[in-house]
């Protein structure tokens, strides 16, 4: 179980892997996530499922190397197995025909946005997707997104591809052109989601965001993933991961995400001190 069947690098520090997990593939709905452990001493990290194939019994994960676990995953290669993958977890996205749905994906956030976009598209919505990244090389899954979007707009902070600027400016442009928008779904770095909500609040647009708080069990048992929504404490893992963006306390989320910064650095250095080469890169490797 949980064997890596395909793996590729799709950007600097960004990886995509197709993993054997038939039961999860079957049960998974857009918006849901999994929690994985790489090894027996590994931590439990949540990752949203980027795609799945029920016939082949696979799920697709996309991750950026930011900490010791994600770096370790970067060194895993085809044929290797994850110690554990638990899922699907979290409440699925509420999908119905809203009318026009605008999906805003920033950086790695495009991966979790993809199945939601696909679901919204299949439900008969007019889907406009806005994808953004710092620079062209960091854009991911644009072709997949194009297939499930009625309109696709790409922006880069440095202007190396598409619109020169932020996704929020593109969204503002849509609002300014009088585009009818019934729902906005925004997934990306916390500052981006916060900025999107600042735009949609003014325009009074319902906005769903998918949050990525630190988690441990992912079933509502520990409360590590506490977020404040509308002044109420909620658990990201079972009440979410999607919440009404207009009500989320993003500043608290950012502070909580920084809770283990010091230890994360220690863990990362520890990982670097004990390097683990991917066998694929060596002559004679698989």
């Amino acid at each position, binding site marked *: 179980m949980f064997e890596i069947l395909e793996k590729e690098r799709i950007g600097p520090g960004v990886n995509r892997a197709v993993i054997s997990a038939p039961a999860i593939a079957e049960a998974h709905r857009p918006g849901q996530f999994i929690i994985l452990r790489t090894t027996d001493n590994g931590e439990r990290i949540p990752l949203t499922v980027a795609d799945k194939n029920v016939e082949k019994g696979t799920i697709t994960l996309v991750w950026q190397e930011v900490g010791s676990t994600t770096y370790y995953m970067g060194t895993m290669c085809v044929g290797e197995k994850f110690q554990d993958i638990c*899922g699907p977890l979290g409440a699925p996205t509420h999908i119905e025909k809203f009318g026009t749905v605008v999906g805003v994906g920033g950086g790695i956030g495009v991966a979790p946005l993809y199945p939601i976009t696909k679901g919204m598209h299949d439900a008969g919505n007019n889907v406009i997707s806005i994808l953004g990244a710092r620079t062209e090389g960091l854009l991911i899954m644009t072709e997949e997104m194009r297939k499930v979007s009625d309109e696709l707009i790409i922006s880069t902070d440095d202007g190396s591809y598409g619109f020169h600027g932020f996704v929020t400016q593109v969204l503002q442009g849509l609002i300014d052109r009088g585009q009818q928008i019934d729902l906005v779904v925004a997934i990306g770095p916390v500052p981006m989601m916060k900025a999107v909500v600042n735009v949609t609040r003014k325009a009074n647009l319902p906005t769903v965001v998918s949050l990525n708080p630190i988690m441990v069990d992912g079933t509502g*048992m*520990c409360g590590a993933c506490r977020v404040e929504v509308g002044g109420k404490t909620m658990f990201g893992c079972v009440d979410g991961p999607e919440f009404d963006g207009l009500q989320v306390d993003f500043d608290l989320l950012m502070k909580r995400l920084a809770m*283990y910064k010091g230890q994360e650095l220690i863990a990362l250095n520890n990982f670097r001190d004990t390097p683990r080469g991917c066998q694929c890169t060596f002559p004679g490797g698989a």
Partner: protein
Amino acid sequence: MSDQQAKPAKKPKVPRQKMPEQDPIQRAHNFYEVALGYENDLALLEASRCLNCKKPSCMKGCPVEVDIPDFVSLVKAGDMIGAAWKIKEKNSLPRIAGRVCPQETQCEARCVVGAKGKNEPCAIGRLERYVADYAAIHGDGKLPEMPKATGLKVGIVGSGPAGLTLAGALIKKGVAVTVFEALHELGGVLVYGIPEFRLPKAIVRAEVDELRRMGVEFKTNWVIGRIETVDDLLEKRKYDGVFIGSGAGAPLFLKIPGENLNGVYSANEFLTRANLMKAYMFPQADTPVAKGRRVVVFGGGNVAMDSARTSLRLGAEEVTIVYRRTMEELPARSEEVHHAIEEGVKFELLSSPLEIIGNEQGWAVGIKLQKMQLGEPDASGRRRPVPIPGAFYEKECDTVIVSIGNAANPLVPSTTKNLETNKWGNIVADPETGKTPKDRVWAGGDIVTGAATVILAMGAGRKAALSMIDTFKI
């Protein structure tokens, strides 16, 4: 020497034999087991204190009705393995029960030796632990004779003490059993909650392995309510019965300002990081936990003691339990309180938290407390703590562990059709049989009773087993 001692000395009364323990100063800095267990001579001496009563009241104090005088008689005869088998007839998990049962309020509270006044009761729990460990180490590892398969199959949701007990009872009756566990390791609260120094995980693993060898199937990383539902197990997978033993895992918070600051944990999270995720090995194990210098624990139960003692072992300089009543009312086992005090845990009594104070970066830096006094007894008979007007004070700390109990985790009840829950979200089930009003569904343990003890959950597993055996006419 005087010659007045002419009378033949009366046979000296054997006192209750103490169990050797690690030195408190040493053990407060390691995760090895605190209690070291009896040696053979101590066990024989302690067993000799049992009166082998004709009408043993001790058994009535045991939620799983272990044949206590019978097993103690086998100890007296030196047949430790036989004694262990005697216990296992009623309790599949004696090494665990021998360590975490509150015997002082159960079997030992009813022991006639203790009831006669001056003497302390026979140390049944310590004997149980001794023989079960002895059998695990010196036994031949043989399994009990397994009956023919009945063709029946039962699904068990949750691998905690209720689920494991039921699994053990059913497999011995020829029922095929699958246990579904949400986490990556088996044992539920036995592995995520109870610390290594009270219950080594190797022991839980060994008990689980024995069930596996008997034929119990375990599925980890399998969250019932998400990957499939109880109704799926009944309808699609055609289980003849399903038992829900998903535990009380949904931590309660005080709902006071500052509870979402960094450095504030539920006891569940803190203990899960430290135990299940092995944060004490960080960075060799990947999961970190905030290493508090000054730790405050809210609550006075066993879990609060576990959290406080774990904090010490992680290197905290000062650990304080804040409790709104007095030492008399602490709900924790006296042994745990005693251990905590020995190890250096401080108690801030008659004190109730009002607020957690944070800094700019969002970290807890202190707490604001309200001084209390004891007023009139409440419904539970305990004197109710009431605030002393105007008596507020502050205390510095960098870590806060909230250990005020758990609510029912709604994941399973909310995804199962026609399952009744009470106003606290606990599943409604017959306390004698575990049967729920929903056809073919039983439930037991904390998900039914609210947070309670390991042995009560084992008792619920046993009752459900008897009810299933009766229902299925095995």
